[in-house]
């Protein structure tokens, strides 16, 4: 005979993940035999579900209705650890970091309210809810701007451009101007007006955007949301997964799934207008847009010899030169294949075989030369690994390469001795890196910069004129007498610029800033 206490014990063990196989068999038998047990089981599970739903699934819209949200924090102390965690996008892996943001539900304040339980701790003065990851043309209204890249609780108004925020639990939000938001914490933001795209990983499940008409609870998905400032209507477009549209008054939940849309006006659901392409920019599109503006500016630099944007052409073997008037032609691609570069939509060439290369010709004689490229080195297979090398080893030829340890080296081939007067850090593998080689026959010196920092300096004594001529990108047409004939680089390149002058260090630094893959990208 099974007593009520036995049954409740069994149900509790199942609910708490402590049931044995014998428990499971017992449940099967009891459920099949008795309608009374099934009724008790339903009652118990309904309680289990309701507690979960109220504490977890329903987030706390009441928090967002709080009339007193603190202003963004003044210049507070730099939170290196948090910053690193945001950048890595693996915040949840770090239990310590997680604990800082953990939502701690408090007991219900008003029993009649639907979302009566979940409520984060009060925001602390130096709380960082989100970080600015990227942006293009971004301009915030005075007094409603982030503190550097940090977004604490408070109101923000984007008057121009597009920004990409990453919240502490992993949700990404792309905000397009004009837009106003009120950040409450890492999981709760109010959209007052404008457009956002949200991409929330499973770790950010429950990420909630409140609006005047409804609350939008993300269940691990991607969606676009627009709030019309005048009417207060909000339009939701779910691209993938599910978003729960919650009426803060009644607690009613409308689940909207991938491919569907919904409009909310004054708590009522209605059909949303059709989605237009480009309505909700993606995180990757920001970087690409920023780079396209940079490319336009670059092409106005009359001191360029060539600018190769690595844009795939109809004839895929052509490496197009986007700068006319520098005396250089398009390059030719042999073996290397097209792939994706720093951002989705940005083309790059992949070099992963000994025979892969692209060929460009830098005609004439020069006193000064700068070669700069964005590269992603996957692996180092050889003693020397070329970024851009003149064919063979004639005096006046230029070499720009990595050694087996990943240190940059090269210069101009000169008669007589030379000295390396400074050697800095190696090139990191597996991430996008800006490398620039600046050679001057006038000062008889060469500087190589990695992500804008000096990584090698070389000096020599003899006179030499720079005659780069035919060069291979990511490979070398060897001098038959050389010991290290194979110098194939394993990796990608998505931009190459060549100037007939020596760029100063600060100008190299600006190139790095303009082309950086994202604001959280590290130069180290």
């Amino acid at each position, binding site marked *: 005979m099974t007593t009520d206490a036995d049954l409740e014990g069994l149900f509790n063990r199942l609910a708490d993940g402590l049931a044995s196989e014998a428990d*499971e*068999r017992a449940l099967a038998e009891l459920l099949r035999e008795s309608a009374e047990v*099934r009724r008790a089981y*339903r009652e118990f599970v309904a309680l*289990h579900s309701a507690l*979960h739903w109220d504490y977890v699934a329903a987030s706390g819209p009441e928090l967002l209705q709080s009339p007193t949200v603190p202003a963004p924090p003044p210049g507070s102390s730099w939170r290196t650890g948090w910053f690193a965690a945001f950048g890595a996008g693996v915040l949840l892996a770090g239990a310590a970091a997680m604990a800082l943001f953990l939502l701690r*539900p408090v007991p219900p304040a008003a029993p009649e309210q639907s979302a*009566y339980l979940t409520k984060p701790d009060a925001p602390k003065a130096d709380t960082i809810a989100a970080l600015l990851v990227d942006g293009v043309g971004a301009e915030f209204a005075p007094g409603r701007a982030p503190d550097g890249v940090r977004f604490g609780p408070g109101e923000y108004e984007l008057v121009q451009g597009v920004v990409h925020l990453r919240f502490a639990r992993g949700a990404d939000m792309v905000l397009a101007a004009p837009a106003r938001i009120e950040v409450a914490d890492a999981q709760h933001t109010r959209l007052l007006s404008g457009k956002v795209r949200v991409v929330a990983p499973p770790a950010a499940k429950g990420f909630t955007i409140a609006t005047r008409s409804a609350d939008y609870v993300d269940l691990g998905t991607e969606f676009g949301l627009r709030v019309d400032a005048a009417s207060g209507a909000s339009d939701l477009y779910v691209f993938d997964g599910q978003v729960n549209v919650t009426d803060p008054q009644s607690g009613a939940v*409308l689940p909207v799934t991938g491919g569907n849309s919904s409009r909310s006006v004054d708590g009522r*659901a209605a059909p949303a207008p059709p989605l237009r392409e480009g309505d909700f920019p993606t995180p990757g599109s920001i970087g690409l847009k920023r780079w396209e503006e940079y490319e336009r500016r670059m092409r106005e630099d009359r001191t360029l010899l060539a600018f190769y944007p690595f844009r795939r052409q109809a004839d895929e073997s052509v490496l197009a030169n986007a700068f006319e008037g520098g005396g250089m032609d398009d390059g030719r691609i042999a073996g290397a294949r097209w792939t994706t570069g720093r951002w989705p939509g940005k083309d790059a060439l992949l070099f992963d075989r000994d025979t892969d290369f692209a060929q460009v010709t830098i005609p004439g004689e020069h006193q000064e030369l700068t070669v700069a490229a964005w590269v992603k080195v996957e692996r180092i297979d050889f003693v020397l690994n070329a970024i851009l090398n003149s064919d063979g080893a004639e005096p006046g030829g230029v070499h720009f390469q990595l050694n087996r340890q990943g240190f940059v080296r090269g210069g101009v081939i000169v008669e007589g001795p030379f000295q390396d007067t400074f050697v800095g850090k190696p090139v990191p593998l597996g991430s996008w890196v800006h490398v620039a080689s600046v050679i001057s026959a006038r000062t008889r010196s060469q500087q190589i910069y990695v992500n804008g920092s000096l990584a090698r300096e070389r000096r020599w004594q003899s006179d030499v004129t720079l005659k780069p001529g035919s060069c291979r990108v990511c490979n070398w047409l060897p001098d038959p007498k050389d010991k290290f004939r194979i110098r194939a680089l394993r990796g990608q390149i998505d931009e190459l610029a060549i100037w007939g002058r020596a760029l100063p260090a600060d100008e190299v630094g600006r190139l790095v800033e303009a082309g950086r893959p994202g604001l959280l990208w590290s130069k180290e």
Partner: protein
Amino acid sequence: MGVSTEFVTQITRCQRQLHAFILSMVWNPAEADDVLQETNLVLWEKAAEFDTDRPFLPWAMRFAQFQALAWLKRHRRQHQRLVFDDDLARLLADEAVTDEPVFEDRRLALASCLQKLPAEQRDLIARRYEPEGSVNAMAAAGGTTPKAVSDRLRRIRHALLQCIRRKLGEATA
């Protein structure tokens, strides 16, 4: 999209009840969330087939039943599959539909019953049901055993169930 207002209203109304039914088969609330999400996806796809002259919940419950069984199969829950064959799943789904008239009342009763719990018990419930909360984590944090934590939760759940029954009894009396 072609989804009627009626459909939107109905799917909104039955979310919690579908979750409770799914939970009766998968036991883990977060996993029940996932199955509910899959069920909602199917319901939206089938929205055009929904006959507005017929009751919504039994129609939706059938899809929840299939999704929960499919989920158990996919996740190779051998024991749960032994517990929940097609017949039992159907029986539970059919009977779950009969709770519809009292389901919302129970939810409101729970809200009021939670208020009556001592602060220390409410805190225990909060920690068990917060995101990522589990008796194992609570036991590790409190220097006790998962069984000891589960026993305490059992007493609190018992009190809540009793309180809900009392409240519903009051309402009908």
